[in-house]
């Protein structure tokens, strides 16, 4: 592993810790007005959401750039990687400074002043150059994860540019165009980083099982295609209730319903997974990947229900959306990324606190389940009171909802503690000299590392 990669991983973990901290603070600023005098919610929320998204993107790119060396058998220019990392992190620091000063761009999820998108774009181009220099040396028939990484990286660029198109006056001529450009690009960008993350999960799975076959064959590619069309056309579900052209709604509905195929396939594959689980469960990375699998199942089920407009009518604009967003970003993305970081840092070989790690993982999973259910219950209550009971006064709508949100906030502290332990532990391991192993740690599998 190069030193740049180590810094890359360390930065990602630091962002995870920041996201957790800001998230817990935001939850209390939300619930206790006196708290938000000191730490205003309109600053904490963007700080939390940006830290979370940056954690995911930084963690995802760390994996792709590291695994590509092994896959393509060629290590491309380290200076390009370092250039990306430096520029990327400097921009992130500037983003947090802007929030601290109360300077906003006010776009959902990317709430920083738009000028900062420029250095970010430049950083991404450096990353692409670094990746593509290795990619051109790929074998003629690359495994699926290579396709996933490449489409993820390219689509991130496309959606990032699209997201900033609102600066052209034409896109703000009508509100429908304005809302379309925001949600079309945001929805697809989630798909783009998922391609990178799932690609890395697949890569690790092939390495653990020693079976490249799972990353090949028509079925694997078919599902990848479904995911890709989802990325391109499913954004319509974000704005079902807005009076856009009907085909946008029908297409998004059709594509989401096609995803049931994926869902049924997951259930069918479950038994095979259980057998495999017995064989590999001593591997920490594997446990995190399997934890993500559970959350794929839960979130896909929720998402499929929300994608039916008749149900969306009640759930849209409620905390169910937050359950969907955080359920997926914590349960799926964060779990896979933590697994991937364990794998890159050779956690099982180099550490000896597997038991604590496992406790922290279980504690995080349990807290997340409570957190997620509390958000769903809060959402159902709010949706019911607004849409079915037709209550107009906001304070009255929120009265019972707020009580449920206290449960959410307490469970959030649980996530902070559990994931916080995992993050700090991995950060320490990452900052330790790269190849030292701690005394007596077992070496469960041999992993291929090129150094």
């Amino acid at each position: 592993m190069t030193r740049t990669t180590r810094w890359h991983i360390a930065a990602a973990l630091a962002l995870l810790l920041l996201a957790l901290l800001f998230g817990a603070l935001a939850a209390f600023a939300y619930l206790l007005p006196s708290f938000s005098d000191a730490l205003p919610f309109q600053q904490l929320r963007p700080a939390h959401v940006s830290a979370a998204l940056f954690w995911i993107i930084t963690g995802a790119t760390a994996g792709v750039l590291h695994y590509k060396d092994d896959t393509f058998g060629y290590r491309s220019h380290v200076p390009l990687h370092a250039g990306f990392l430096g520029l990327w992190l400097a921009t992130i620091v500037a983003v947090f400074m802007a929030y601290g000063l109360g300077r906003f761009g006010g776009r959902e999820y990317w709430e920083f002043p738009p000028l900062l998108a420029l250095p970010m774009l430049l950083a991404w181009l450096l990353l692409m150059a670094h990746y593509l220099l290795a990619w051109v040396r790929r074998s003629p028939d690359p495994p699926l994860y290579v396709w996933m990484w490449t489409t993820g990286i390219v689509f991130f660029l496309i959606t990032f540019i699209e997201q900033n198109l609102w600066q052209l006056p034409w896109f703000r001529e009508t509100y429908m165009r304005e809302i379309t450009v925001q949600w079309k690009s945001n929805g697809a960008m989630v798909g783009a980083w998922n391609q990178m993350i799932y690609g890395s999960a697949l890569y690790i799975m092939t390495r653990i099982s020693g079976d490249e076959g799972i990353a090949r064959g028509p079925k694997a590619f078919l599902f990848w295609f479904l995911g890709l069309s989802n990325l391109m056309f499913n954004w319509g579900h974000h704005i079902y209730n807005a009076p856009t052209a009907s085909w946008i709604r029908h297409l998004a509905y059709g594509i989401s319903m096609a995803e049931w195929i994926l869902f049924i396939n997951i259930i069918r594959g479950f038994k095979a997974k259980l057998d495999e689980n017995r064989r590999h469960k001593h591997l920490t990375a594997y446990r995190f990947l399997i934890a993500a699998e559970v959350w794929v199942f839960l979130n896909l089920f929720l998402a499929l229900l929300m994608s039916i407009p008749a149900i969306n009518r009640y759930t849209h604009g409620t905390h169910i959306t937050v359950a969907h967003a955080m359920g997926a970003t914590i349960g799926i993305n964060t779990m896979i990324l933590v697994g991937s970081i364990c794998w890159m840092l050779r956690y099982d070989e180099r550490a000896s606190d597997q038991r604590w790690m496992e406790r922290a993982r279980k504690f995080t999973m349990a807290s997340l389940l409570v957190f997620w259910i509390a958000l769903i219950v809060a959402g159902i209550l709010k949706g019911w009171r607004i849409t079915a009971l037709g209550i107009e006064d906001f304070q009255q709508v929120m009265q019972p909802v707020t009580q449920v949100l206290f449960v959410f906030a307490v469970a959030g502290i649980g996530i902070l503690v559990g994931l916080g332990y995992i993050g700090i532990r991995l950060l320490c391991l990452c900052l330790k000299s790269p190849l030292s192993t701690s005394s007596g740690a077992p070496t469960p599998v041999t992993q291929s590392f090129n150094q």
Partner: protein
Amino acid sequence: MWMRYALAALSVCFVAGSWFAYRGASTNAPASNQVRQGMRLWQGNNCTACHQLYGLGGYMGPDLTNVHSDKGEARIRTFVRYGTGRMPAHAMSDAELDALVAFLGWVDRSGRSRVPQEAVHWTGTYHFEQP
């Protein structure tokens, strides 16, 4: 090889879909300069952190898509200027408040955030056309 063709076909659909999605967006109420200024104020003050438009945004405060017609201009001015226990007060000039109100009025005229029961089709999708 078929992978490349399929990927190319999908990309073409993506480009065409993007074009139609943006082109087709209703142009009933083009944004005036005042609306554009209001939009900048909405973004610069990060109202999105606590409020939604068409259900999208943060969830601390209510959805404001139709606040202009449902609750009236005066309410918008009072809330923004004086705040509440939970919403911060915003120091804004009268011209700025006018712009913000114009922006919310413009959003309001684009449609209704809440979908009426009648719009739900038996297949589960919605049937309503652009205003």
